[in-house]
């Protein structure tokens, strides 16, 4: 796929902001199509979160008999499980998106991009934007499945939209961290091997069970884990009326992580460029 040469328009001014957007758009399209054309890779990010949510709601439904749970957390365990499923799906998808970038490096496509008159930044931004688009698509499908299964979003369409945007921002943050690692290491194996770490972070949070019912050191870890706060922001969109704290947790926290991690990814890129 020779992006720069197939579209002469892109070759006019590679350094301009306009060309940055154009190049990023083309690479975003490539990234999204690449994901959609590999159903075997994208399927686990749908199957496992939905399976765990279904399992949780069938196993822990008695929690909804606790007045504290229904008053302060969620109307049902299915409603509670939505945010965990979204988080899990986005983390799965972000890891495999970054692994795709590492595969580009391993297979030499990255070098061909560098040899073409294309904005360097768009190589990273295109991948990150692609990841965000896939996340928005994924969260929308998840929510439609959950609503069909009986879940209700208390804050209505705004909560729906809030969660879709929150999912996209989280995807941006995680993809940027993983893209930085992919560029730094140039190995898809390294990127994939970080997934167990994300898995640990996810379990040591309130993604699958409310913090209120945890105790001891596990509760302390969950309290400090930023994933707990992000997922509780997501839960707020579904189970409570809209308020600022949900936006702060579900949007601003991932956005802050995204800013730092994009900086890390671009820095990794410039180091790789300097080395080559």
């Amino acid at each position, binding site marked *: 796929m020779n992006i720069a040469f197939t579209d002469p328009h892109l070759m006019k001014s590679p350094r301009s902001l306009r060309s940055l957007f154009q190049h990023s758009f083309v690479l975003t399209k490539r990234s999204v199509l690449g994901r959609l054309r590999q159903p075997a890779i994208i399927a686990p990010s749908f199957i496992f979160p939905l399976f765990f949510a279904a399992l949780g709601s*069938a*196993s*822990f439904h008695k929690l909804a008999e606790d007045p504290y749970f229904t008053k302060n957390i969620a109307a049902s365990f299915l409603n509670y499980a939505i945010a965990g499923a979204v988080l899990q799906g986005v983390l799965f998808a972000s890891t495999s998106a970054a692994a795709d970038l590492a595969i580009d490096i391993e297979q030499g496509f990255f070098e061909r991009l560098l040899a073409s008159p294309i904005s360097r930044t768009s190589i990273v931004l295109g991948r990150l934007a692609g990841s965000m688009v896939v996340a928005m698509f994924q969260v929308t499908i998840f929510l439609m499945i959950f609503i069909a299964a009986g879940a209700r979003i208390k804050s209505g369409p705004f909560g729906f939209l809030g969660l879709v945007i929150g999912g996209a921002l989280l995807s941006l943050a995680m993809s940027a961290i993983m893209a930085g690692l992919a560029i730094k290491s140039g190995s898809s194996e390294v990127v994939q091997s970080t997934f167990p770490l994300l898995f640990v972070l996810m379990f040591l949070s309130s993604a699958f069970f409310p913090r209120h*019912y945890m105790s001891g050191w596990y509760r302390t870890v969950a309290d400090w884990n930023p994933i707990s706060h992000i997922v509780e922001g997501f839960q707020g969109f579904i189970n409570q009326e809209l308020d600022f704290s949900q936006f702060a947790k579900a949007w601003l926290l991932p956005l802050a992580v995204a800013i730092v991690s994009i900086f890390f990814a671009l820095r990794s890129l410039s180091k790789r460029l300097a080395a080559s």
Partner: protein
Amino acid sequence: MSSSPISSSIETGLHAAQPMDVIKVLVQRSMMRVRRMPSAFIPSLIMPVFQLIAFSGAFGFAVTSLGIKNALDWYVPLNAIQGASFGAVGVSFGLINDMQTGFFDRILLAPTRRWVMVAAPLAAAIVRCIVPVAFVIIVGFLGGMNTPGGLLTLVCLAISAIGIGLVSCAFALGLTFRLQNLGAATLTQFGIFFTIFLSTSQVPISAMTGWLRSVARINPMTNVLRLARQGFLGDVTWEGSWGGLLAIAVLVLLSCWYAMTGIKKFDQ
């Protein structure tokens, strides 16, 4: 591989070797692979322990609110069985490697019975699954799990874990002989994962609702988990044991039949 002492001992000594000798040599070879490639075995050791900590920490309230003294009493048997099955499936990764390098074809040319080619990986699987089970039990004891059933608690757990390890390994072998690629081991892992979680893995049947309750009722893993857990929750009784023992026996027979028909297909 031709200069390997094990492969040469198989090639030169098989005409005189008894099946048990061949099985012993192949088990030793499998253990040597674990020693030389610990990175392939360590995840099956760490993951059950991590899951034990994660499940008992996150879902502890859900089981203790049902009258279970310590969440570890509920989750140690689950994670021991899970660790055993994933450890045992690791044997099929070795088999795929042997198929890709041509070593397995050479073993097949040797004058040995076909059932030995299934029995040897199964024996190796038993050895491999003991380690994660022991690791989970040690962590459980350190965490303060209860064993009111006494020594029989550990016997029931060992039977359940090794039984499911054997089933997992035999099923993985059957699938590997048919597919001859890494997808066989991955598919087996998916199968084990879903079978375990669609049973009483998280909570007892009485606490379940809807579709999961119906699935868990007919899932043989529910009986196996009952066998494994009974000593942690109370006394070990025949009533709590026979269902699990029967389930393990039937599953072992079926999966071994699947592995044997698989190697016949591979031969053809």
